């Protein structure tokens, strides 16, 4: 079975600094695949390389059987490869509903239609409404971004990637800065995505990662040092040495 996302030999350097080093990674359809690693391991750079914001120096990326190495960000998004951001990026002059409706629109194309009012596009807003209900923001649909709490903004940040029925979403620390209750809601949302699409999850909360993930990969110094089922990775000596540290009972 070929992987949904198949990355081979990916490289990126900034001057003399190697950020991504001959990285290879496979994400299967329908799995939650967590990517963990210490600060500075190159996680966010990798997300930008996979989503197309950052051009790679060399290596190939195949998505759904097609070579997307040369595609730019909006082309990859249209193929169903979406990302969210570690630092929330929402459209401030649009309401919550309009944010989501635009995300649906961007996934559909036809964004050069300049005569018909978008307001009358009922299917567009129905689809937006369905995603808002799923992420628990239906009651806040008419609110402005400023009126949302931090947790609600994070939910919308992730929710925008779901607007166009994606095949794979790259979530860059979706739980950053969240309280326990909000984190649980986000974890439940991510777990529920399995039905619809694959998830590549970057997260610092190791407990959440091991609860949620089907597969865990560990990124250290721009390369994957281990990849497999959560319990196997947790016990991997190289991972313990580089990132997780010694379990307390072994000390």
């Amino acid at each position, binding site marked *: 079975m070929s992987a949904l996302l198949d990355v081979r030999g990916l490289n990126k350097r900034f001057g003399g600094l190697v950020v991504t080093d001959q990285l290879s990674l496979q994400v299967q359809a329908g799995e939650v695949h967590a990517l963990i690693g210490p600060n500075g391991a190159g996680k966010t750079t990798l997300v930008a390389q996979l*989503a197309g*914001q950052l051009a790679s120096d060399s290596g190939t990326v195949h998505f759904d059987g097609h070579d997307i190495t040369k595609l*730019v*960000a*909006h082309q990859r*998004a*249209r193929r169903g490869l*979406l*990302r969210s*951001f570690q630092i929330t*990026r*929402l*459209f*401030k*002059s*649009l309401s919550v509903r*309009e944010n989501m*409706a*635009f*995300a649906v*629109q*961007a*996934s559909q*194309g*036809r*964004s*050069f*239609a*300049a*005569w*018909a*009012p*978008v*307001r009358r*596009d009922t299917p567009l807003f129905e689809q937006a409404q369905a995603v808002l209900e799923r992420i628990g923001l239906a009651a806040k649909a008419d609110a402005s971004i400023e009126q949302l709490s931090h947790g609600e903004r994070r939910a919308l940040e992730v929710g*925008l*990637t779901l*607007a*166009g029925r994606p095949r794979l979403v790259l979530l860059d620390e979706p739980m950053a800065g969240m309280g326990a209750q909000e984190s649980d809601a986000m974890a439940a949302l991510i777990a529920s995505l399995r039905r619809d699409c694959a998830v590549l999850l970057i997260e610092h909360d190791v407990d959440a990662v091991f609860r949620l993930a089907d597969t865990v990969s560990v990124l250290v110094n721009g390369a994957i040092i281990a990849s497999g089922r959560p319990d196997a990775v947790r016990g991997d000596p190289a991972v313990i040495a580089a990132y997780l540290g010694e379990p307390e009972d072994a000390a």
Partner: protein
Amino acid sequence: MTINRWLHLAVLAAAIALPWALRAFGAEFYLSVASKILVFAIAATSLNLLLGYGGMVSLGHAAFVGLGAYASGVLLSEGVTSSGVHGLVTVAITGIAALAIGAISLRTRGVYFIMITLAFAQMLFYLANSIKGYGGDEGLTVRTRMLLPFGIDLRQPDSFYFVALAVLAAVLLLLSRFAASRFGRAVQALRDDELRAEALGLPTFACKLVVFVAAGVLAGIAGALSVNLQGYVSPNALHWTQSGTLLVMVILGGAGTLWGGVAGAAALLLLQELLAARTEHWEFWTGWVLLAVVLFARRGLAGLFARRST
């Protein structure tokens, strides 16, 4: 019909009635001022599309106004008077120029975009200065006007006024339809956060280029009208200070509001008309007005009247 639409129709009716009103008060002279305001309103509205709606601050927009004026002026001096030809040539020349300048300039952002649009505009300014066959630095004077269907004669002040009014009304209709459309929503989103809009699948570069070309062509149409109003175009029409004047109009009137360009053009030109008759330091007093608007009415003059209509 919404209150907004009634207001728009009321303004249009008042504008149509203006020539008779001026005549009734024996102030026919002001009709040429009104025509000039209409032409500048079209130019300022085109910059408002680029700056207010698209978030692209250009300091070279007058180059497209000047290019349109020269396109029409050169045709007139060569004896070509068909308005169809004038329209086609103006749209083609300003469209191609905006496509080329936009394709290069839009690879930069912020202050670099301001500088590169300024640089292109200055190149065209010096080009206009160097064309000796068409007036060079003295400017180009034309005696004829383009011929419109139904024998409309642009030398008649009333006729010119109504033609310019019709063009402005069409531009405002297009702008309001655009603002409420899918494309308008896409442009609004990319103005808020371009990186995010592209990450969601929007081809942001193409969107910005379309807006840039549309704004350039509309500016060119304003330029073609201006040479038919004044019978004269000089390289100064392309100078960067002229771009600055258009920027002042947009900011004064209200960037990103439908009537921003119109309100700004009317306010600035009327201020100029009123103050210049009393003092030679009219620019000093205009500066105070601009300062007051920027400090106390952030959405500009049009923003004072516009309520968020839903």
